């Protein structure tokens, strides 16, 4: 299996590559959008700022190439952290008087990315550290073998609020109910960092590589 880790100029790419390698699969760093179709599964990492990441996706020609690879050719995709937030229709990070409607994302999973404080969280931000997840029922294939209460490593100040509750497959609590993972068909996303979540994260990545897309 050829697993492509998308290199569009951001992200803790070293950590993502190593976490996949340790599962016995050789990942390839994909730095040209056109090379994605040669991969069987795709990981979209992301750290940082939604607007900056979205601009890089657009400037590098990744948006159309991702639509082709993911929506037409049905390649399974896992977005991580900001990589998951980019799956949304709109990101409100950096929204203000100049940019009241926010920034468009890939739109693979309809919804908005909002600041945790607008969701009611009054705790310290960013939300940094290990937090326990709660699976939806039935449990998504991404969480096979991963029970409720398992801790994953989160670090973020914005959260994805999908329009359809069905697209949420795990949540966490941080002064508000926060989307921890999403899934629609062959598109998955985790707000937490599986590549930095030790053994639980390794199990989740293995689940992604084995999951049947539908």
């Amino acid at each position: 299996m050829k697993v492509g880790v998308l290199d569009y100029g951001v992200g803790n790419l070293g950590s993502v590559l190593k976490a996949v390698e340790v599962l016995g699969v050789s990942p390839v760093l994909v730095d040209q959008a056109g090379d994605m179709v040669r991969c069987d599964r795709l990981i979209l990492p992301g750290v940082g700022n939604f607007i900056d990441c979205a601009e890089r996706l657009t400037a590098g020609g990744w948006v159309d190439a991702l639509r082709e690879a993911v929506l037409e050719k049905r390649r399974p995709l896992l977005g991580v952290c900001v990589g998951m937030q980019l799956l949304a229709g709109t990101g409100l990070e950096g929204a203000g008087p100049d940019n009241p409607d926010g920034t468009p994302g890939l739109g693979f999973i309809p919804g908005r990315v909002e600041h945790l404080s607008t969701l009611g969280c009054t705790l310290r931000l960013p939300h940094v550290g290990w937090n326990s997840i709660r699976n939806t029922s039935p449990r998504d294939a991404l969480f096979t073998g991963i029970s409720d209460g398992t801790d994953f490593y989160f670090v973020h100040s914005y959260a994805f609020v999908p329009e359809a509750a069905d697209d949420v497959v795990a949540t966490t609590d941080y002064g508000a109910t926060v989307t921890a993972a999403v899934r629609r068909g062959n598109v998955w996303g985790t707000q937490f960092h599986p590549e930095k979540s030790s053994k639980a994260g390794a199990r989740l990545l293995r689940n992604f590589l084995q999951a049947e897309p539908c």
Partner: protein
Amino acid sequence: MLKVRVIPTLLWKQFGLVKGVGFDSWRRVGPVLPAIRVYNQRDVDELILVDIVAQGTGDEPDFESIDDFGQDCFVPLTVGGGITRLDQVQRLLRAGADKVSVNTAAYDDPDLISQIARRFGAQCVVASIDVKADEGGGWTCFRGAGQIPTGREVVAWAREVEDRGAGEILITSIDRDGTMEGYDLPLIETVAGAVRIPVIASGGAGNYGHMVEAVQQAGASAVAAASIFHFTEQTPAEAKAALAAAGIPVRMPFQPDQDA
């Protein structure tokens, strides 16, 4: 529920790990890579690795070594020492760092924190602040591996790094460093009370009770420690058990669910 993290701090000087007292009289405590492997194997919450030579001399970070160290680290790794530019941050993230800590360079160029936060996100920047108590009952920030007073007062500086986009503050008491007499609780409480970002307590932990105090009395979001793990039989796993016994939420090792 968010867990309180127990973070071993690894200070790295040329070829090995060291630990000092009061940022001085460094003792060698062993090679870096096996230490990272062991901590990863034991499933610690997170690691902080600081190159104290680079911090003092303005040398480039040692990217090759960081690449080696990251090979066996599947928990969050913060790397510090010698970071003065954005391109260095990008190289460190490619090498296996997840966050960077910035200390000395931020005093010369506070905008560096803003730039890293804009480009890589606030979660990527840990502002490391080293302080000594001053005669007036406050604390003064020191740069250059704790050697050079900056004249900046800790509360004002903590608020400035927060405003500039730091995602966390690692606050270290130079006076308590290596003494194992306990964290400077008034310092931690003052900084945690001054900012809204998470604060990691550092400097002085000598037993698990000190960690409990830092969380329950001073409001730390995480506790960092070095000497306690290098020079005593105490371990991060036992530290977490002690925190749990005191009613503090901590992460327990992953148990695969066989029925699922």
